[in-house]
C-alpha cells in the first residue's frame, strides 16, 4: 500500500517536472481570462453577425434568405457608389498622404533643424484630436461663406465662392484634405522612428560619392523605409475602408452619394432607412473580406523581404 502510494507520488512528481503543469496552468489561467473575454466580446458577436448576414427583413421580422444579401451587394448601386468613393479615397489620398509624411519626416530628421520638437509636435497634434471635433471644424472652414472661401476670394483666386459641400468633386476634395490633415502626422511618426535606424554612415558615403539630396532621398531613404512605407500604406488603406466620421459629419455623404463611404452606408441601412440589419451586416462582411484581402497582400509583401 505504502509503496504504491510512494510510487504514485514519485511518478506524479516526475510528470510534474516533465510537463511543468503547474507553471503551464498559471500561464493558462492568465491566458484564459483574455481568451474568454475575446471569445465573448469578439468572436461571439462576429459569429452572430455572420448568421445575421444570411437574414433579411425590416427590424425584428428577419427571415433566412441564404446568400441573397451577398448577391444583392453586386446589384446595389448605392453600395457600388460607396465602394467606388472609398476606392477613390485610398487611390488618391493614401499616396498623397504618404508622400507628404515622408517629406516631413525627412525634413524633421535633419539634425541641424532648430525647434525640431516643436515642429514634430505641431504636425503630430492633429492625430490626437477627436474625429468628430475636427470634422465639424472642417465643415465650417469649407462652408459657403467660410474662411477658405473668404481667403480665396480675397486673394482673387476665385470670383465666386466654391460651393464645397454641394459639388460632388469639391466635396470629395474636402474629405481628402481633411483625412490627410488628420493622419499625416501619425504616419510621419512611423517614418521618423524608422529613420533613426538608418545608419548615418550610408548617407556620409553617398555624400562622399557626390550624391545630391534628391538622390539620397530616392536611392537611400525610400529603399531603407520600404517595409515601413508598405506597412503604413496597408494600415491607411484599411483605415480608409472603415472611414465614417468625416463624411458623416462634414458632408453627410452628399451631395447625392458623392462622398458616401461603406461604413456610412451600413449606418444608413440600420438607422436612417427602415432597418435591415441583415443586409447591413452583409455589407460589413464585405468590408471584412476586403480588409482580409489587403492584410494578405501585406503579409505576402512583407514576407518576401525576410
Amino acid at each position: 500500500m505504502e509503496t504504491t502510494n510512494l510510487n504514485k507520488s514519485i511518478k506524479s512528481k516526475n510528470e510534474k517536472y516533465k510537463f511543468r503543469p503547474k507553471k503551464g496552468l498559471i500561464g493558462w489561467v492568465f491566458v484564459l481570462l483574455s481568451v474568454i473575454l475575446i471569445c465573448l466580446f469578439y468572436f461571439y458577436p462576429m459569429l452572430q453577425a455572420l448568421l445575421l448576414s444570411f437574414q433579411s427583413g425590416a427590424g425584428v421580422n428577419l427571415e433566412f434568405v441564404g446568400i441573397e444579401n451577398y448577391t444583392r451587394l453586386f446589384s446595389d448601386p448605392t453600395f457600388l457608389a460607396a465602394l467606388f468613393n472609398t476606392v477613390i479615397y485610398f487611390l488618391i489620398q493614401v499616396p498623397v498622404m504618404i508622400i507628404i509624411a515622408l517629406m516631413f519626416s525627412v525634413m524633421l530628421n535633419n539634425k541641424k533643424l532648430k525647434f525640431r520638437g516643436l515642429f514634430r509636435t505641431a504636425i503630430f497634434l492633429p492625430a490626437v484630436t477627436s474625429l468628430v471635433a475636427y470634422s465639424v471644424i472642417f465643415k465650417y472652414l469649407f462652408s459657403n461663406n467660410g474662411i477658405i472661401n473668404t481667403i480665396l476670394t480675397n486673394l482673387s483666386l476665385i470670383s465666386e465662392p466654391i460651393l464645397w459641400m454641394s459639388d460632388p468633386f469639391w466635396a470629395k476634395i474636402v474629405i481628402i484634405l481633411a483625412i490627410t490633415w488628420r493622419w499625416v502626422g501619425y504616419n510621419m511618426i512611423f517614418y521618423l522612428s524608422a529613420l533613426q535606424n538608418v545608419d548615418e554612415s550610408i548617407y556620409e558615403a553617398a555624400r562622399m560619392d557626390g550624391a545630391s539630396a534628391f538622390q539620397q532621398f530616392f536611392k537611400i531613404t525610400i529603399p531603407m523605409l520600404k517595409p515601413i512605407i508598405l506597412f503604413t500604406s496597408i494600415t491607411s488603406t484599411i483605415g480608409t475602408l472603415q472611414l465614417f466620421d468625416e463624411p458623416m459629419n462634414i458632408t453627410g455623404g452628399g451631395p447625392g452619394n458623392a462622398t458616401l463611404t461603406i461604413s456610412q452606408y451600413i449606418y444608413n441601412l440600420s438607422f436612417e432607412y427602415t432597418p435591415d440589419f441583415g443586409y447591413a451586416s452583409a455589407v460589413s462582411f464585405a468590408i471584412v473580406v476586403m480588409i482580409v484581402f489587403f492584410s494578405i497582400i501585406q503579409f505576402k509583401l512583407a514576407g518576401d523581404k525576410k
Partner: protein
Amino acid sequence: MKKRLLLLASLITILFIAACSSGDSDEANGTSNGNEADGITVWAWDPKFNIKALEIAEEAYKAENPDFQLNVIENAQDDIVQKLNTSLSSGTTKGLPNIVLIEDYRVKSFLEAYPDSFHEITGSIEVSDFTPYKIAATSIDDKNYGVPFDTGATGLYVRTDYLEEAGYTTEDLQDIDWNEYIEIGKKVKEVTGKKLLTNDHNDFGIIRVLIQSGGSWYTEEDGVTINITDNEPLKAAFKVYKELVDADLMAVHSDWNQLLEAINSGSVASIPTGNWFTPSIKAEESQSGNWAVVPIPSLPEVEGATHASNLGGSSWYVLNIDGKEEAVDFLTSTFGSNAAFYQDLVTEMGAVGTYIPAMEEGAYEISDDYFGGQEIYNDFTKWSEEIPEVNYGLHTYAIDDILIVAMQDYLNGGDLDKVLESAQKQAETQIK
C-alpha cells in the same frame, strides 16, 4: 509562490466574471425599478419646441393628477432613432421610455419593423377630431398608434419689402403655380438682386412638399410599391426644381445654420417650409413687418394640385411596456382632447396642432405684428385641413437618398424620364 500566483490568477478571473454578471443584473434592476417608481419617461428632441410642449402638457395634466411625474429625456432626433432601433431589435424593453416622439415620415418603418413594441391606442382618441392627413400618417390599417402633435403645414414665407420693390404684393401670390412664381422670382432678382429661395441639394424636403401638394408620394397607397416613373407630381416637382436652379433663383446652403443665416441676413426673398420655421424667422427682429406667409404655389400641369402640403411634423407613441395605461391617459387628456391646452401651445410657443376643436374655438386667431398683423396660425390651420392625405410608407428616407442622386443627374443634363426610370429600378432592387 507558484501556488499563490495560481490562486491569484484564478481569483482575478472569478472576480472579473462575477463582476461582469452581477454588474449586469444590478444595472438592469436599477433601470426597470426606476421606470416604475418615477412615473412616465419620454424621449423627445428640441427643447424649445417639443419639450416645451411636453412641459406645458405636464402642467395641464398635473392640475388634475397632482402625483403625476414626467421625466423628459432630451436627445437629438438621430440619437432617438438609433437608440430605439438598437433597443427594440435587441428584444429587451429595459431602459425604454414609455412615450417617444417620432417623426411622421419615419414612424411607419418603426411600426412595421417592431410590430409588437408599440401600444395600439385605437379608441383612446377621437379620430375625427384631428386633421385627416395626420391620422393617415400615424395609423396602419385603421389602427391608431400615435397621438398627433404638431402639424408641418407648409406656407410660403415671403419678404414683402423685396416683392414691393419688384412691384408685387402678396395678392399676386395667391393661387399661382410654380411657373408663375418663377416668373415673379426672375423679376424680383432683376430688381433686388436677391435669389428667390435657398435649398440644400442634399435635403429633399422641398420635393416632398411639392409632391404631397400634388397628392402623391414616393410610394403608392400601400406604402410599399415604389411610385417614381409614372409619378406625375414628382416629375413636375423635378422640373420646377431644375427651373429654379437653371434660372439661378436658388441659393445653396449645406446645413441648418447656413439656412438660418441666408434667411436672417435677407439674402433670399422667400422660403417654402413648414410652419415650425416661424420662430426661426422671427429671431431676426430687424425684419419685423417685412414678412408675410402665403399658400405655397401649386404644381403646374398636375391634376388635383393644391396649395397645401406638409413638411415634417411628429407625433407621440406609447411603447408596449409597463406604465402604458398611464402614458396613454396623459397623452389623451392633453394632446388628445384638450382645446385649452392647444391654446396655451400657440400663445406660449407658436406651436400649431392638428386638433380640430381647437381650431374651431378660435385658438389660433392671433394676429402677429411680425407678419404685418397677419393671423398666420389661423392661416396655417386652415391650410392644414386641405393637405392631401398620403401614405408616407416605409421607405421615405431610403428613396429620398436615391432621388437626391437622380436629381444630380437630372441637373447635369440627364433626360428626366430616363433618370426617374433608373431611380425606380434602383429603389426596387434596394428596397425589399
